[in-house]
């Protein structure tokens, strides 16, 4: 009817396109991925600030109102010690994020380095590193973590206690960190091989691109070529895999806590809450439902985002 207002023509000036902005444009169109992103942002916010905002301390017990059903005072009810489930889930979010981020970070760094070396330098490095990934992957995950935790936890805790008695340094009394260290360490140890394989495959294909030869023709050292020419170009699939990996690590941590080899009570973790809830779920279903639902939501959010990133970063692969 009326002419297009001039202002809309003015804004038609295209912003400079680059890979990441392009990917963001495509990601924005994917509703599930944006849903996942929003959930993750909320969870991350909860993990960082939540524990300061909860109405109750995650440890404070109210024995008068044990196993209370959800109410206005306790959104998710209380557990068998009268602790507020909501506050514990909030604190458990911090545990889950801490584990997921640190474990994935360590696993990605190991995987990236080993994968890049294997792919770029070829044999004999390739053979040794791929052998190492195969061996690691062939050991059942749970078994390895159980073995590490069962065999190392007691000696380390004992050593810490001895150190505390000898030095009276309060640092040694914090056995929570031993817990985390063992969980992080053992989980990272089983999580790196898929990243190493992915990066190796990427590097193998990128190594033969002309710009890599051009960089070598400039006389740049192998490490500069790897870090500035190969790795940045291999990041797309890795980002996708990291996003999915974060969710997997959260589930894995819950699984270990559920089995009693993860984070120990009283530190709340979704896994040990699920484990506690499972014993009484026929009487107090909310004790199982609340942590399980949050865990489910978190892992679904990460996999939606991972899928969305996959489509956004591989324009050729998506419809």
């Amino acid at each position, binding site marked *: 009817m009326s002419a297009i207002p001039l202002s809309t023509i003015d804004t038609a000036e295209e912003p400079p*396109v*680059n890979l990441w902005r392009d990917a963001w444009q495509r990601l924005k169109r994917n509703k599930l991925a944006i849903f996942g992103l929003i959930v993750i942002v909320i969870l991350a916010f909860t993990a960082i600030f939540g524990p300061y905002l909860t109405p109750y301390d995650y440890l404070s017990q109210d024995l008068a109102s044990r196993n209370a059903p959800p109410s206005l005072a306790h959104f998710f009810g209380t557990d068998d010690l009268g602790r507020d489930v909501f506050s514990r889930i909030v604190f458990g979010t911090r545990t889950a994020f801490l584990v997921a981020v640190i474990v994935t970070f360590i696993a990605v760094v190991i995987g990236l380095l080993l994968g890049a070396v294997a792919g770029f330098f070829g044999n004999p490095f390739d053979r040794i590193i791929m052998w190492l990934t195969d061996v690691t992957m062939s050991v059942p995950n749970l078994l390895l973590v159980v073995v590490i935790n069962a065999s190392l936890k007691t000696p380390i805790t004992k050593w810490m206690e001895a150190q505390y008695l000898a030095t009276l340094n309060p640092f040694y009394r914090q056995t929570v960190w031993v817990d985390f260290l063992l969980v992080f360490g053992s989980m990272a140890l089983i999580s790196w091989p898929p990243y190493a394989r992915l990066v190796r495959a990427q590097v193998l294909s990128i190594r033969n691109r*002309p710009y890599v*030869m*051009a960089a070598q023709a*400039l006389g740049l050292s192998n490490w500069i070529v790897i870090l500035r020419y190969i790795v*940045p170009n291999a990041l797309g699939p890795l980002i996708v895999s990291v996003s999915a990996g974060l969710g997997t690590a959260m589930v894995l941590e819950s699984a270990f806590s559920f089995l009693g080899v993860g984070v120990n009570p009283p530190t709340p973790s979704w896994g040990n809450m699920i484990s506690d809830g499972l014993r009484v779920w026929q009487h107090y279903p909310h004790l199982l439902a609340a942590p399980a639902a949050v865990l489910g939501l978190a892992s679904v959010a990460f996999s939606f985002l991972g899928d969305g990133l996959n489509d956004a970063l591989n324009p050729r692969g998506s419809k």
Partner: protein
Amino acid sequence: MMNATTSERLLDVKDLTIEIDTRRGPAVVVDGIDLYVNKGETLGVVGESGCGKSLTMLSLMRLLPNKIKVTKGTAKFDGRDLQKMSNGELRKVRGGDVGFVFQDPMTSLNPVMRIGDQICEPLIYHRKMSKKEARARAVELLRLVGIPGPEERLMAYPHELSGGMRQRVMIAIGLACNPKLLIADEPTTALDVTIQAQIVDLVKDLRAKLGMSVVWITHDLALIAGLVDRVAVLYAGTVVEDAPVDELYARPSHPYTRGLLSSIPKLSDAPASRLSSIGGTPPEPGRRPKGCPFAPRCPLAEAVCHERVPRLEPISGNSAHRAACFVVQRMQEAA
């Protein structure tokens, strides 16, 4: 006299043999190649696909996978033996003394790095410049290769530039450290004809300004006619003829060179006449004939050609014009 000429040689390749390790054993792909580039000179290396043009240049700089090896011969750059250099020393030569421009500008730039950073890379690495100095030099280089608005272009990603612009950026990167030698590996093949002419003019212009030597690898004899000083014609991994460019076009002597020149279509050809071609195909690597590699396709071949390999010898009394052909050499002696 002899010494004077050899000392002027920037790149001197003698009797270089390159083999590829295949599953069926080593296959010779470059057989006793003889090449030289004088200081300040432009050499055109011409030959059809797979004759070893790029392979020779890249393997001299150790840019190829380990299974491609130099098994015989010497290659001197500026008086130093390239084969005897350690990887670290050779790395200083690459990018520092020798610049490369590759065939496909669309894929030869790192897609995730701003072009400014890519030009700065060798300057920071080889010339130990600060980031600021390197950027100033990068602007200067972009201006030198004729890119308008160089200050803004530094921030551009490769995909924001056209093919011709990208090739100019590649040239700027190749020239960054003021190399003594620029190796241009079919730099115009991926560009359309008008851009090709621009790039050829640019390199001509830059060579005059900077006084460097250029090796221009191509399969397009017509393209380099106005660009190079000397041409080396390669066939199946050997130099069959090399001569100053005018001499080569006026008096091609090797049957292969003659075949190549006569297969360039001319506007003066009768309409609808058949394009002339050389019958047969080049030998596969690893299945080289015993004698002259061109003998099976050669119209002049004699018994000796199938038995022994001819050497590159001066002909027509001009020491700069050499050909590897028994028949031509005999005819010269008879004349």
